[in-house]
């Protein structure tokens, strides 16, 4: 049913069913929009790096601004040691940004509005950062749970809180992005539905809301990609520069 605000999140198989050892790995509309987003990213960067001009063309300027923006974000939050992870953060930010933005097109599918997608990212980042921390600092990495300068009496409680907060990182990271994207798109759909149900007389109010919400959602799409990337940088910083 098209008027169901949750219908837009429905995942459908496209093409033949692919099954590997009993697990369904079929190509779906979600996968299709991942490919579309990735294609847009590639296209932008391809056009941006096609010609090497001293005075950049518009597309070149966009790609260079993106590069500088993320380079600054990483150096501000995680310092110089995080430089080897720059390509990962760059890809993460730009891929999530484009998934969110492609989701803003009518009739499209928002890849990041699915908890499994954001959770995959979040778990990968969480596991990766934890392993990195242990590789760099060894067992001293466990100090991250014991903040310095805390009274002895409070230390057990603080440590428990720190452990819980550390373990909830993947959950908060993934749910933040997923919930924002889902809520925004549901709200747009609900207001869109109101426009139809209230008709020519009363439909103008929800329509104007829809327009405003679309603007807001574009902002949220950017902001959430940025938040996701910057939180990744902060977690990375914890693992690279252990000082709590």
């Amino acid at each position, binding site marked *: *049913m098209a*008027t*169901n*605000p*949750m*219908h837009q*999140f*429905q*995942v459908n198989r496209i093409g033949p069913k*692919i099954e590997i050892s009993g*697990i*369904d*790995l*079929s*190509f*779906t509309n*979600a*996968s299709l929009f*991942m*490919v579309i987003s*990735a294609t847009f*990213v*590639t296209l932008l*960067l391809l056009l*941006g*790096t096609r010609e*090497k001009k*001293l005075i*950049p063309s518009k597309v*070149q300027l966009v*790609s*260079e601004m993106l*590069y*500088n923006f993320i380079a600054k974000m990483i150096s501000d939050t995680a310092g110089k040691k995080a430089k080897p992870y*720059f*390509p*990962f953060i*760059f*890809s993460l930010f*730009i*891929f999530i940004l484009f998934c969110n933005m492609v989701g803003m097109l009518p009739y499209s599918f928002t*890849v990041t*509005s*699915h*908890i*499994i*997608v954001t959770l*995959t*990212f979040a778990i990968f980042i969480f596991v990766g950062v934890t392993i990195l921390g242990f590789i760099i600092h060894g067992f001293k990495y466990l100090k991250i749970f014991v903040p310095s300068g805390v009274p002895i009496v409070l230390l057990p409680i603080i440590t428990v809180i720190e452990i819980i907060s550390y373990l909830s990182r993947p959950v908060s990271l993934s749910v933040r992005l*997923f*919930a*924002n994207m*889902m*809520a*925004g798109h*549901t*709200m747009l759909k*609900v207001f869109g*539905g*109101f426009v139809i149900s209230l008709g020519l007389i009363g439909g103008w109010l929800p329509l104007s809301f829809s327009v405003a919400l679309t603007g807001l959602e574009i902002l949220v799409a950017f902001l959430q990609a940025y938040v996701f990337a910057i939180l990744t940088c902060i977690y990375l910083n914890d693992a690279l520069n252990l000082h709590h």
Partner: protein
Amino acid sequence: MKKFLIILILSTLFGGSLFAAEAGMPQLDPKYWASQAFWLIIIFLSIYLLIAKIFIPKIKNNIDTREDKIRKDLEEARIFREEAEKKLKMYKDLIENAKVDSKKILSESRQKLNEDIRIKKEKIQKEIEKETRNAEKEIEKFKSDSINKVGAISEDIVFSLLKDIFGEDGNKSSIKATVSEVIKKQRITKS
């Protein structure tokens, strides 16, 4: 989360019937979880490799080239500026030297001129003095000459007067003596 709650409330208030067909969120249906995660990993990995191996080095190269060029240009500009400043200093020095030289020449020539004038003045002064002396001498000579001549003329006049009045020649020597006596007297009374 606030937005999420608003959606839930709005949906339950207005869109109750909308949920009749499909209840719940498709996101929580695990049917395609594995597929989504699988395709995400494949697609993200490929885009990561593309970005890390091709695009980022390219962009970095571009930016570095530009910064290099800018740095070089700035360096060049700095060198040019320094050169210009050096040249300017040289010109200033040149002008300064010329000023000093001209002052020196001016004062020297003035001194020379003054000396010249002084010498010429002296020379003229001497000449004037000499001329004056000559003139004075001449005047003196003329004076004495004129007295003698006046004497002679007076004698002649007296002689002719005596001849006209008395019809005889007077004694020339006594006339001469008398005239010179008178002249002497006149001179004394005058002076």
